[in-house]
């Protein structure tokens, strides 16, 4: 293996290109029209155009990706996360084109991609699954049949999409009278998001935590689990903060949960990097939830507490190398790590995407801080893709130190021109429930509801005064240049507003069928 095509964009493409360089391998980027000058394109050794901006025409277009791989002479393909990372047809197309797909086999991707088949595989490996239906309900399945199953499982139940993920096609049903409408809503959402309206039922656990286990499996039968990640801080079923180790997992529970996760992976012959997601209830009982057959967004925190380069190992495994890591060391975290997902979203406008030109950007650094970013000053956050711009991680010898360093880093993060979730994270990390580690998967939504829309960026008196001084200096400078007419108001002075991308993007977002959300549905999960 000499040259790897990275079939992705943004921060994860940058991450993979860096791993290639660390291993002395050449890297090939691909780009849609709006990404011509994106960071990943300029960082890679080579780059090839793969089509127009909509993901289906570029980053999801298998034929064009394979053609780019051929044109560049790449011998392997890394899919990143999202886009085609969990698409068995893409993995098969790579294989058929003589390219090494850096990930599990198409069969395993297909098996774990079906939530019901994955549940069966987990149960067969002796791993507890959330009580629920063992089969899928096709779109034609009568509601009366589903109602009988719901009674058997016991309310409250969750309706979930068989092909699902990211909370799409998911509905909570408190009692029988809500069931019929929830089934219809879930089917319709699953159908449009995944092209598969099949659903299944699970019992809804009370105040569960989301705990997941990173795994690596090689082609020689070795599967090694890593210390768990805690991902319970979620907004509408999307992770926003992850940390490792979990503040509530004892070493005994760690042994059981990581052992069970490795059993599932071994049972299906898993190769490459993957993650088993579990729910942990208040009694300390854990249940298999699903398996992600790819690199996880939040992999950096595992790297920080174990010293293992997961992306480099994905590549080494794909080259046929043996895992020669010390299994005990992977389960013994060194210190504590936290990650915040910095999104181009406006936390003061219901977390609406905030695409546009990044007018200025100063990323934090310093001791034990890592910023995995694909953004830079002057760059654009396009409307077509997931608006993740950076993953900010901090490490400490213990949890309080990791939190303090993250707060320091968030204070330094200075992004101008677009709205980001940085002010939201500054608030979140100061919350007592976060600092005490006392939370479950619904905690953040509850905290947000209590705020009742109170803005996250409320400048204090000092900030306001300095802003007024800066604005006055700015006007004075403008005045000196513009030679004002005596009665000119500032509004009159406004002669030319650059028709920037932000305006265009904002108007595009309002066009039905073109918006970011629509694209996100087609693109699939946020990793």
């Amino acid at each position: 293996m000499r040259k790897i095509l990275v079939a992705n964009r943004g921060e994860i493409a940058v991450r993979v290109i860096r791993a290639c360089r660390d291993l002395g391998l050449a890297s090939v980027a691909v780009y849609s029209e709006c990404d011509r000058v994106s960071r990943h394109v300029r960082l890679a050794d080579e780059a090839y155009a793969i089509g127009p901006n909509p993901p289906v025409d570029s980053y999801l277009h298998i034929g064009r990706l394979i053609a780019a791989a051929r044109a560049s002479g790449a011998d392997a393909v890394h899919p990143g996360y999202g886009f085609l990372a969990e698409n068995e047809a893409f993995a098969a197309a790579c294989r058929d084109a003589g390219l090494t797909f850096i990930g599990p086999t198409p069969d395993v991707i297909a098996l774990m991609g079906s939530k019901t088949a994955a549940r069966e595989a987990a149960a067969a490996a002796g791993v507890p699954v959330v009580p629920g239906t063992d089969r899928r309900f096709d779109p034609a399945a009568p509601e009366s049949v589903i109602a009988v199953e719901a009674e058997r499982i016991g309310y409250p139940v969750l309706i979930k999409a068989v092909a699902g993920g990211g909370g799409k096609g998911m509905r909570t049903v408190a009692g029988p009278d809500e069931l019929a409408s929830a089934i219809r809503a879930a089917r319709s959402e699953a159908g449009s998001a995944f092209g598969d309206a099949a659903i299944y039922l699970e019992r809804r656990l009370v105040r569960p935590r989301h705990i997941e286990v990173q795994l690596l499996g090689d082609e020689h039968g070795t599967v090694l689990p890593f210390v768990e990640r805690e991902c319970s801080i979620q907004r509408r079923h999307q992770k926003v903060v992850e940390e490792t180790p979990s503040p509530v997992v004892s070493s005994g529970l760690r042994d059981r949960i990581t052992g069970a996760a490795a059993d599932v992976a071994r049972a299906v012959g898993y190769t490459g990097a993957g993650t088993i997601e579990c729910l942990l209830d208040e009694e300390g009982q854990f249940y298999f939830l699903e398996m992600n057959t790819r690199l996880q967004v939040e992999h950096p925190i595992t790297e920080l507490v174990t010293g293992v380069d997961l992306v480099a190992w994905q590549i080494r495994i794909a080259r046929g190398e043996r895992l020669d890591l010390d299994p005990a060391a992977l389960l013994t975290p060194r210190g504590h790590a936290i990650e915040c997902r910095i999104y181009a979203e406006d936390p003061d406008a219901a977390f609406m995407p905030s695409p546009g030109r990044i007018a200025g950007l100063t990323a934090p650094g310093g001791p034990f801080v890592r910023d995995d970013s694909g953004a830079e000053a002057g760059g654009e956050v396009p409307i077509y893709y997931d608006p993740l711009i950076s993953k900010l991680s901090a490490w400490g010898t213990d949890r309080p130190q990791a939190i303090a360093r993250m707060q320091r880093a968030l204070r330094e993060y200075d992004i101008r021109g677009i709205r980001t979730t940085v002010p939201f994270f500054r608030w979140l990390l100061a919350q007592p429930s976060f600092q005490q580690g006392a939370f479950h998967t619904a905690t953040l939504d509850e905290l947000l509801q209590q705020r009742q829309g109170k803005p996250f960026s409320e400048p204090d008196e000092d900030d306001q005064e300095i802003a007024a001084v800066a604005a006055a200096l700015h006007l004075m400078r403008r005045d000196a240049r513009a030679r004002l007419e005596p009665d000119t108001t500032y509004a009159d002075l406004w002669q030319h507003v650059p028709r920037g991308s932000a305006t265009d993007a904002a108007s595009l977002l309002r066009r039905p069928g073109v918006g970011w959300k629509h694209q996100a549905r087609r693109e699939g999960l946020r990793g």
Partner: protein
Amino acid sequence: MTVEIEAASRSRSVRVARAGQGYDVTVDGRPLTVDAVRIGQLAWSLLVGPAGAGHGGGRSYDVGVLERAAGALTVYVNGRAVPVAVGGRRGGRRRAEPAGDATTGPQVVAAPMPGRVVKVLVKPGEAVGARQGLVVVEAMKMENELRASRAGTVREVRVVEGASVEANTVLVVVE
């Protein structure tokens, strides 16, 4: 130069005068000493001290000024965004000119950029004073109040509330 500046919806009167390498600034009458160095198109480094402290020292702020729309700025102060609205200028050269001189004829108030009319504040025939608000236009989620540049009578109102307008669309004519 004195300007009225609305930072986070509270208005402040800011007077700026050059003083050697820096500036003497008063905010609502409170004097400050400001050392300001531009470090890019949009960015300044400010060292702010009390009056008489001498320039070149004080609290350190990284600030950025971004123009969002007519009279609407976002000022970043050490990474924290502060919305700022800038109204009509006051003082400075304007005060030296006798009001109304050399500026006769109708005032045509047009939209500075594409947006939506949020509020029409005047009716035809109404007398308006200088700098009185006429129309509020929302563009890119920021509301901008367009004001009369001098006193007069509203002759025409060409838009209604809720209307979408292109840049340079005439909104109000004052005579």
